[in-house]
C-alpha cells in the first residue's frame, strides 16, 4: 500500500524516511552499544554508582578517611584513631558486641512478631507453632533467646572494663550515667520478654519479680506505710505494672508493648546519645599514657588529652 501512494501526491515518502531512519539506526545503536559496553567495563563511572559512592576507592589515605566519613553508619567513628586504641585487650570490644547483639535481637524480634499474638488464648500456641511448624522457627526463637542472655553478659562485662580502666572519670561522667541507664533497660528488656511465651517459667519468674513491687515503700500495699496511704492490691504500683492484681492477660499485653515498643525505643535513643558522647568526650579513653602520683593534682585532662 505504502508503495503505491509513494510519489503520487508528492508527499516526501514515508518509506524514504523509514529507510533513512533504518540507515541511521544501523550506525547509532551499535555506536551506543559499544559505548555502553565500554561503560560497563568500569562500573564505578556509572551515574548510579557515583550517586551512591561519593568518592574513589583507590587505596589512598584520603579515600580511607572518606570511606568512614561519608558513610552514615561508619561515621560514628572518627577517620583515624590512636594506634593503641584498636587493641582488643583494652576495650574487649564489649560495647560494640553488645550493640551488635541488640541489632540481632531487633532483627530476630521483628521476625518473631510476625508469628506471635500477645493474648492468653494464642501466645503459648504461637510459640508451639513456631517451634514445630514455622520454617526455621525454632532456630529463630533460640537465637533471640540466647542473644538476649549474651547481651546481658556483654553489658556487664562492658561496664566492668569501663570501670577497670577508670573510663568513667572526667570528662566521661555523664556517659557512664547514660550507660547505667542502658544497663537497667537491657535487664528490663530481657525481663519483659521472659513472660511472653506464657509458660510456667515466665509466669512464675514474673510473679516472683513483680511480687516485690507489692512491698514498695509508700506505693505498694504490703510495703512500709503503703496501707496507711490507702494502697490496696487494686491500686498500688504492682497493679499499675501488671494491669491487674495477678499476672494475667493485661500483664501479657503490657509486657509485650514494653518489650517490643516502649523499651526498645528508649534504649535506642539512649544508645544514640551514648555513642555520640563517646565521640564528644574525646573518643575511647585509652590506652592513655600512665599518670604518675606527682602529676595527680595538676589538671591536664580535657577531652583532647585522652588521645595521647
Amino acid at each position, binding site marked *: 500500500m505504502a508503495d503505491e501512494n509513494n510519489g503520487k501526491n508528492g508527499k516526501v515518502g514515508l518509506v524514504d524516511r523509514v529507510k533513512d531512519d533504518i540507515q541511521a539506526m544501523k550506525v547509532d545503536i551499535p555506536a551506543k552499544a559499544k559505548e555502553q559496553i565500554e561503560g560497563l567495563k568500569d562500573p564505578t563511572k556509572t551515574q548510579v554508582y557515583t550517586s551512591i559512592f561519593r568518592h574513589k576507592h583507590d587505596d589512598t589515605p584520603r579515600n580511607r*578517611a572518606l*570511606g*568512614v566519613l561519608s558513610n552514615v553508619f561508619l561515621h560514628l*567513628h*572518627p*577517620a*583515624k*584513631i*590512636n*594506634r*593503641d586504641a584498636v587493641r*582488643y585487650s583494652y576495650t574487649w570490644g564489649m560495647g*560494640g558486641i553488645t550493640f551488635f*547483639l541488640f541489632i540481632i535481637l531487633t532483627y530476630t524480634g521483628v521476625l518473631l512478631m510476625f508469628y506471635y499474638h500477645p493474648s492468653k488464648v494464642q501466645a503459648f500456641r504461637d510459640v508451639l507453632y513456631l517451634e514445630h511448624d514455622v520454617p526455621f522457627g525454632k*532456630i529463630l526463637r*533460640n537465637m533471640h*533467646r*540466647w542473644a538476649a542472655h*549474651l547481651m546481658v*553478659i556483654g553489658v556487664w*562485662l562492658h561496664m*566492668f*572494663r569501663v570501670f*577497670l*580502666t*577508670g573510663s*568513667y*572519670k*572526667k570528662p566521661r561522667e555523664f556517659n557512664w550515667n547514660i550507660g*547505667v541507664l542502658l544497663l537497667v533497660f537491657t535487664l528490663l528488656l*530481657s*525481663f519483659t520478654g521472659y513472660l511472653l511465651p*506464657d509458660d*510456667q*517459667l*515466665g*509466669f*512464675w*519468674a514474673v510473679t*516472683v*519479680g513483680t*511480687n516485690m513491687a*507489692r*512491698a514498695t515503700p509508700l506505693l505498694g500495699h504490703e510495703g*512500709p506505710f503503703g496501707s496507711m496511704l490507702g494502697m490496696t492490691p487494686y491500686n498500688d504500683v504492682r497493679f499499675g505494672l501488671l494491669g491487674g492484681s*495477678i*499476672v494475667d492477660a493485661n500483664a501479657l499485653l503490657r509486657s509485650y508493648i514494653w518489650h517490643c515498643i516502649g523499651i526498645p525505643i528508649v534504649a535506642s535513643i539512649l544508645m544514640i546519645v551514648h555513642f555520640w558522647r563517646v565521640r564528644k568526650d574525646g573518643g575511647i*579513653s585509652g590506652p*592513655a*599514657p*600512665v*599518670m*604518675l*602520683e*606527682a602529676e*595527680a*593534682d595538676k*589538671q591536664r585532662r580535657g577531652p583532647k588529652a585522652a*588521645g*595521647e
Partner: protein
Amino acid sequence: MDWRQLWEICSAPDNVPIVGLIPLLCFYIYLAWKQAHANDQLIAQLEGDAALAKTHHRKTWPFKPGWQKEVHVWPFLLRIEFLAAIIVTIILMVWSITLNAPLEEPANPNLTMNPAKAPWYFLGLQEMLVYFDPWIAGVVMPTMIIVGLMVIPYIDTNPLGSGYYTWKQRKFSIGTFLFGFIILWVAMIIIGTFIRGPGWQWFWPGQTWDHNRLIYEVNRDLPDIFGITSNMAKALFGAIVVGGYYLLGGFLVYSLFRRYMAKDFKRMSLLQFSITQFLLLTMVALPLKMGLRLLWHIKYVWITPWFNV
C-alpha cells in the same frame, strides 16, 4: 553424690549463660590483671626515674620514633569489628542449633513452680530475700545499686588511673567494685542458680533436690536476745542499733580514710565523703546481716509496726 541432679542444674538451658559467665569473667579478670600489672611496673619504674619519666611515652606497648600515632579506622578498626561480628554470629548460631530455648507447660497460676526462680540475672536480689524483707531486697537495694553506680564518677575523686588498667593507683575503688560486682552480685547469682533448690533451701552441688525436706529453723530477733518486749522499746532499740552502726561505722571509715587514703580524703568535699561513707556502710551491711542470720539465727534487727529491718 547425685551426678544426675548436678547435670540437670548445669545443663538447664537458662542456666547455661551462668555456666558460661564464670569462665568468661575469669578470663577477663586475668586479661585486666595482666595489663594492670604491666602498667604498675612501668609506673614504679618511672616514679623512680625522673629523667626517663620525661622521655618515655608512658605505655607498655612499644613505640618507636617515626611510627604514626594514629591509624586509619578503615581498615584497622573496621576489620576487627567485622571479625567480632562474624565470631559472635557463629557462636550464636552454633548455640542456637545445639541448645533449645526452654518452654515449660502453659502458665498455670494454680500450680506453683518449686523453686520459683526469677530470671538468672535477678537471682542475686532473690537470694537477698532470704535475709531481708521484700521492700529492702526488691525495691531499696535495686534503687541503691542504680543510684550507687551513677554517683561513682562523682565521688571517685582520684585522678589517677583514667584510661589505663592499674591496681596500685586505685586499690580502694577497684577493691570496692570487685566486692560489689563479684561477691555481692555474681556470687549471689551463682548461689541462687546452683545451690538453691525447692523451698529455696540450700542444696550443695550434687545433693539431690528433696521436695519434702523441711528445715526447722528457729529465728530470733535481736531485741528478743536483750529481753526487750514492748513494741515501743523494740522500735527504739532497733533505731539505736542501726543508727549506731552508721555513726560508728562512719567514724571508722573516716579514721581509715584519714590515715590510709589521706590524698583522696583531702580532695573530697563533705558531700562526696558522706555519700561514700553511706554507700560503703550499706554495702558492708549486707554480708553483716547475712552473717547474723547464718551464725546466730537473727532475723530482724529493727522491728517497728510499719517495717522491719
